């Protein structure tokens, strides 16, 4: 399983294509799909990072060629099949199967309230942060085949802790359905280190990385 989604720094990319009309949706189905994502609460086991991981596991060709919101459709379809809520044939037909025992879906009157809910991803910490601002750290290298938020272009690199951000839920565990928190840091990397010889010496690249991604350099 190659990390097809892990695009940071990939060479050989063309110009950025901008929409002349700059509209978020190019067709009704895109808006519907986005709205399904908002209005569907789903089973508790569908964590945000499980959702992301299921998207990352889409076949590479589909990930690279299918429209963005079409990939969302694929994610929900796959999660439904995985959770035993529907078969691929039912999803293809748009009908059939048992009605699951879930609470009543969000109604139109709930939307304003739900839209204003902010999720806080911090959890109380039972350990002190291992690093403080200014510490020099080295990022680890993770093998392919599991969900992580350490991008490939930042593996095995040296950076400086810019800020400690609190004890945040760790996506690597969230994608396995486990709610484990770890200290999170914004780490700054220099362009000279990341992209030697490419004229980026003046630029700084920051990412938010969890403690288990880092070791003291």
């Amino acid at each position, binding site marked *: 399983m190659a990390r097809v989604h892990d695009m940071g720094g990939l060479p050989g990319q063309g110009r950025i*294509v901008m929409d002349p009309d700059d509209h978020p949706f190019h067709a009704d189905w895109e808006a519907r799909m986005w709205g399904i994502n908002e209005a569907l609460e789903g089973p508790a086991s569908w964590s945000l990072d499980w959702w992301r991981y299921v998207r990352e596991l889409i076949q590479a060709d589909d990930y690279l060629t299918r429209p963005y919101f079409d990939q969302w*459709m694929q994610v929900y379809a796959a999660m439904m099949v995985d959770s035993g809520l529907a078969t691929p044939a039912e*999803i293809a037909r748009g009908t059939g199967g048992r009605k699951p025992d879930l609470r009543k879906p969000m109604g139109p009157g709930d939307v304003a309230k739900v839209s204003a809910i902010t999720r806080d991803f911090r959890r109380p910490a039972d350990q002190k942060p291992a690093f403080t601002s200014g510490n020099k750290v080295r990022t680890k290298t993770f093998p392919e085949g599991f969900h992580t938020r350490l991008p490939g272009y930042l593996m095995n690199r040296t950076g400086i802790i810019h800020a400690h951000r609190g004890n945040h839920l760790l996506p690597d565990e969230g994608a396995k359905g486990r709610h484990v928190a770890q200290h999170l840091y914004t780490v700054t990397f220099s362009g000279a280190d990341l992209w030697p010889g490419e004229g980026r010496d003046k630029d700084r690249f920051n990412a*938010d990385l969890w403690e288990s991604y880092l070791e003291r350099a």
Partner: protein
Amino acid sequence: MTSSYDPKKITEIHEHLHSELPSDPALRVKALESLLVEKGMVDSAAIDAWIDLYAEEIGPKRGARVVAKSWTDPAFKARLLADGTAAISEFGYQGHATGHVVAVENTPVVHNLVVCTLCSCYPFALLGMSPGWYKSQEYRARAVRDPRGVLKEFGVSVGDEVEVRVWDSTAELRYLVLPQRPAGTDNLNEDQLAALVTRNSMIGTDRVLKVAR
């Protein structure tokens, strides 16, 4: 209704779906919505309400008001830089993907640029829907490798004296770029200032805001 959390199982399901679902995405999404409604998991009227809310109320005008306020009220700016989420809540703008907002400030010698290389993270409740290019392979790949080249394509030239700071949204922190207040705007009020702030300037793909003459 548990999940397997098993990448092998999901890979097989993806292959299965790939061959079994209709090839037209419009049909696929229509079938998915019908099935979810039949299963009592989604209310189509709630989908309509979400689309209306983001079309009419939640959009980059929110972020623009926050930026304008930061230009006119130094105490607010200090609060925004200290705790972005608390500061935007003063406007009632808290919501999706704004639980950990971090404001980063442009100066004559600093330019900030935001990207999500791993997916498409974006401060929705503050800036509305993200533009298509933000989610594109080209932007995600190049913003962290050739930010000045990317900026050039957006018509932004930054001199050698300017440090470009790229922020990759790898966690749940969401970055809001505070563009510089344009010169010649001393006589403008907050609403007029907010009208100058472009969405792209809050992502970092715009830098010098235009003032109507």
